[in-house]
């Protein structure tokens, strides 16, 4: 297990460096000069522009800039935006919003997705199965912003059951509707994965053995079949948490939640490179750490993986 853990950890390092470098290159080599953008319509003196460039390391070669940035990140410093604000300060309050939204969506996926999957998997080929399969396919096909607007219109405005926008009611009430919208895609995949996996495992020899030795059906399903069926679901749920954090931008926009996604989207358009790089780097870090944890958990759950 330790060898496996160490190998996975070593693999994660180049991926982190590669992804952050890619983001860095994307943000800072694409057209658009931040200092000119900062100056606006009035030209600024060359000496001032030069001093600003010096201050934000814009005169160094890109790789040196990246190395300096990584060095700062290692010391917990996310750098400074072109307007002098600390990037860390700009993002502090926003992480909470995005994290709460992602957690709500994730819990929804986990609870409802697994329940629907078990329901359908136990009744494969019957009405429940068809309903779950059809419903989840439909949800996957509807773009998330259409789903978001429809949900907001129906359950926030027409029949005001839940708050339709903003975070005034705090967690969890304000986050229920956006969380359900954000989690609906993952829910569909979780339900389908659980269903297929459970239906396959129910035909396995060990299930027949468990039945033959007289275990009650409920116990066979819960302790034997379901436990093995959830391994791929755990993997998916892990990977998806990272995607939920990074993909929350559309949902945040529709439901007017002041999260990281909103901030990054604004900053991209204002060419505030340091903010974009800082936020996306942290998102990638979350993604990689969660994946690492899932792989380690996977190794614990399934011995075949760690002895490979």
């Amino acid at each position, binding site marked *: 297990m330790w060898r496996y853990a160490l190998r996975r950890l070593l693999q994660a390092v180049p991926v982190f460096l590669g*992804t952050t470098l*890619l983001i860095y290159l994307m943000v800072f080599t694409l057209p658009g000069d931040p200092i000119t953008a900062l100056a606006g319509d009035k030209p600024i003196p060359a000496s001032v522009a030069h001093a600003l460039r010096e201050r934000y390391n814009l005169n160094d070669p890109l790789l040196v800039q990246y190395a300096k940035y990584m060095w700062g990140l290692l010391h917990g410093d996310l750098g400074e935006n072109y307007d002098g604000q600390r990037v860390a300060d700009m993002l502090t309050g926003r992480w909470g919003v995005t994290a709460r939204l992602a957690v709500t969506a994730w819990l929804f996926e986990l609870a409802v997705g697994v329940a629907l999957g078990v329901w359908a998997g136990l009744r494969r080929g019957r009405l429940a199965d068809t309903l779950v399969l059809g419903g989840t*396919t439909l949800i996957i096909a509807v773009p998330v*912003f*259409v789903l978001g*607007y429809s949900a907001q219109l129906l359950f926030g405005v027409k029949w005001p059951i839940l708050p339709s926008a903003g975070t005034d009611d705090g967690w969890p009430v304000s986050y229920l509707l956006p969380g359900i919208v954000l989690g609906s895609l993952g829910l569909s995949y979780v339900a389908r994965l659980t269903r297929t996996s459970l239906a396959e495992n129910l035909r396995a020899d060990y299930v027949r053995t468990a039945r033959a030795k007289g275990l009650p059906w409920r116990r066979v399903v819960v302790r034997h079949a379901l436990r093995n069926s959830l391994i791929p679901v755990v993997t998916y749920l892990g990977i998806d948490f990272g995607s939920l954090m990074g993909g929350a931008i559309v949902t945040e926009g529709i439901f007017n939640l002041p999260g990281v996604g909103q901030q990054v989207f604004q900053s991209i358009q204002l060419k505030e490179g340091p903010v*974009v790089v800082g936020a*996306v780097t942290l*998102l990638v870090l979350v*993604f990689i750490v969660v994946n690492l944890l899932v792989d380690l958990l996977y190794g614990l759950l399934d011995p075949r993986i760690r002895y490979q």
Partner: protein
Amino acid sequence: MSVQEPETAAVAEAGGPISDVRASLWRDAWYELRRRRLFWVCVAELALVGLMAAVPRLFTGRAVNTDCDPNQAKAGPSGAHWFGTDTAGCDYYAHVVHGARPTLLIGIAVTLFALVIAVVLGSLAGYYGGLLDAVIARITDVFFGLPFVLGATVILVAFPGHGVGAMTLVLVLLGWTTMVRIMRGQVIAVRDADYVQAARLLGASDPRIMRRHVLPNAIAPVLVVATLNVGNVIAGEATLDFLGVGLQYPQVSWGLQLNQAQSYVLDHPHLLLFPAVFLTATVLALLLLGDAARDALDPKLR
């Protein structure tokens, strides 16, 4: 399939009842598929949208954004305007019909490019393994870790005035990883099979083995994922349009229509409804088609 062929040959030699038609995985799958009603519904939907994309004139005589009457803006469906009018008073039906082309074009082009990348990189990584595999796997991981919407926004904002070509490029750049992983897994599963060993012992070269033996036996699941991928790309493209960083006015696409509709959905739901229904129906048809093909190609379920 590779197991079935020698048997067929043996029966044929023994004078058994064999038609000229050779049994193959694809033929079996086709036999499975054509009996399904849902399969034909999906094909019909896609044929309709495909025809809209190819020859919009068949469906509407109006060009996009012409004969607009601002006094008639945001009107609901009527005899003169089947789908109502948009925010500038232009015919919404013509807009929806003309929106099919860029949407479909991007979906198919992105998937084809991604498929080529997947077949090349996946085959190389899976077949040779070792260092090459490790390097390709890490590069795939790097791109896989980029958040899709944010990554695409960074690139697209830097190039204002981009069209269908640039959108395709960006979507390929951010979406090629999944199929590479699946292709690699498939090739690994096939490369040590007996018939591949046999070909190697007979002195076949690596490129020949890959082309003639590994590829045909490994590609089926990748093609299924490619079908699903067309749907996902279309949804992703619409999301970028919706956020305002994708295609720009005066280009037309369903996503762009939804972008323009977003401030008015409360009072004029038809602006949301029509493009959303077409978008959803197309993505749904592609997903169901992929699912049906997967079931038909998987002998385990038969």
